[in-house]
């Protein structure tokens, strides 16, 4: 019940394409869902986060869509660029909790 399942494992898109990464969770106590971007040799960095009281959140070229009834959420990257090539992690936690549960990650490659 603590898992966050992420797909796909890897993704290749052309520059300008819109990669979509999907995540699903079981624990209904989760109420905060961040997405992280990680480059090789670096720690993860927070991209964008959402709470389940909204169905969509946009920050720049990054959009999270959230479906509370299905317990699923996804990241869309608009107008993807080669510099977006990285590993992306979805995650989940709950207010007052200390433990963030991460998905297994999606390796994105954007072709120039």
């Amino acid at each position, binding site marked *: 019940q603590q898992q966050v399942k992420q797909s796909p494992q890897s993704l290749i898109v052309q520059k300008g394409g819109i990669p979509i990464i999907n995540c699903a969770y079981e624990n209904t106590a989760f109420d905060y869902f961040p997405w992280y971007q990680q480059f090789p040799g670096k720690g993860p960095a*927070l991209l964008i986060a959402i709470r389940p009281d909204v169905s969509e959140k946009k920050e720049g070229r990054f959009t999270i869509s959230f479906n509370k009834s299905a317990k699923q959420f996804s990241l869309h990257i608009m107008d993807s660029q080669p510099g977006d090539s990285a590993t992306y992690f979805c995650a989940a*936690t709950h207010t007052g909790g200390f433990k*963030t549960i991460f998905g297994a990650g999606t390796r994105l490659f954007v072709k120039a």
Partner: protein
Amino acid sequence: GAGVSQSPRYKVAKRGQDVALRCDPISGHVSLFWYQQALGQGPEFLTYFQNEAQLDKSGLPSDRFFAERPEGSVSTLKIQRTQQEDSAVYLCASSILAGGSTDTQYFGPGTRLTVL
């Protein structure tokens, strides 16, 4: 700017050796987290500190793992009698607020531990 720093960046240990990994959080950050990231996987929570208090250590895999933050700033993760399965990147993160994981966490670059 001063982000989260970790040292050493790389550590090679022989099986059975003890290791100590250091984390320097962003100055003034109350919360500090340790994670273990196996190759090709997402980070897994190990432990959480609020100032010097260790409020959650449920993710520590065994009693060989010990973490401390005695003065509420620098933290050390110690692994005794290292085993090959301990090989991973150990990440530290800090956040400015108390009260858990929904505040923005700033990660360090990690320490890559290889146990031979």
